[in-house]
């Protein structure tokens, strides 16, 4: 997995031009575009549930998936699983066979697993991005999207520390855990992990 913040609105320029607005009021007017590369289709399905965002994703209608076994995301829990790797091999053979027999890619792709790699361009406004971080940096989030959110936040903090030192999982932003009885119990550790560099 790889992510890179390609472009964003110039926060400091807007802050200086409109000093009556704080960073929180400017958030809906800010936008951040990321290249998100080599995540699984399972992860991209989770990403697109964040509807206040824009996505341009590699299309399996136009792009042939070559050497599937080299283009899958393997969860650590199944890394040693023969079943997983055998199934990927079988899916790869089935997909290639269908494409070579003339089945359109848009139909052959139905045999591809959720583990298949994909890349996309994603743009979120600042408010939507804070909500994304609140949910997906939580200890209860799924590991791949949480890893992605962590990498995205690091890039945002490097670009606009003043705004993004305020971003983290919801427990960090709210001062309490909103997960109720599902709480991980690790709020103190999360606060420590996401506190800005140099703060006590």
């Amino acid at each position, binding site marked *: 997995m*790889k992510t*890179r913040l*390609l*472009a*964003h*609105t*110039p926060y400091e*320029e*807007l802050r200086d*031009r*409109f000093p*009556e*607005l704080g960073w929180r*009021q400017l958030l*809906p*007017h*800010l*936008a951040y*575009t990321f*290249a*998100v*590369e*080599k995540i699984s289709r399972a992860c991209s399905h989770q990403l697109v549930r964040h509807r206040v965002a*824009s*996505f*341009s*994703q*590699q*299309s399996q209608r*136009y*792009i*042939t998936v070559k050497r599937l076994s080299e283009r899958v995301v393997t969860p650590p829990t199944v890394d040693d699983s023969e079943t997983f790797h055998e199934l990927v091999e079988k899916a790869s053979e089935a997909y290639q066979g269908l494409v070579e027999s003339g089945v359109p890619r848009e139909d052959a792709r139905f045999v591809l697993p959720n583990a298949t790699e994909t*890349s*996309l*361009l994603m*743009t979120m*406004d600042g408010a939507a991005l804070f909500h994304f971080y609140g949910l997906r940096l939580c200890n209860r989030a799924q590991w791949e999207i949480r890893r992605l959110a962590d990498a995205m936040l690091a890039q945002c903090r490097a670009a606009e520390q003043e705004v993004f030192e305020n971003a983290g999982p919801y427990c960090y932003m709210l001062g309490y855990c909103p997960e109720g009885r599902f709480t991980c119990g690790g709020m103190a550790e999360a606060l420590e992990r996401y506190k800005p560099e140099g703060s006590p």
Partner: protein
Amino acid sequence: MKLELVAHTPNVETMIATSMLTTTSGAQPSTLYDRLLSKPEKVREVVGRAEVQHGNILEHNRMVWMLEATGDEVLEATLDTRFLTFTRLGETRWLVSGNLRAVVEYAQSRKTPLTDALAASVKDAAPNVHGFLEDKKR
């Protein structure tokens, strides 16, 4: 009514071209973006095909405007389009933002002083997209 574009994301049309090619080429989006940054002719050619694509390719950017308008004028705009964001700064001063898709679709659906000003404001940031809007007027 007075509208001024005060900020926008950089390389708007390079991003449109990156978005278009991401969906159909096997290259990674960051690689496409880096390549296209040094190829303005390629960007022009790709963006020239943008009219036949999904509108979402126009969404990977943000334009921020300062608007001087009455409350009634802003109410009319908010009833016309759901995709512009408004923050009130004073009696007749507003901070407005949205992406190019919002501008293009609003300008193509309504002819008002605001839609004319919005379309004109993107001329430098997105000259080819601005060109489509001008062609449609003719």
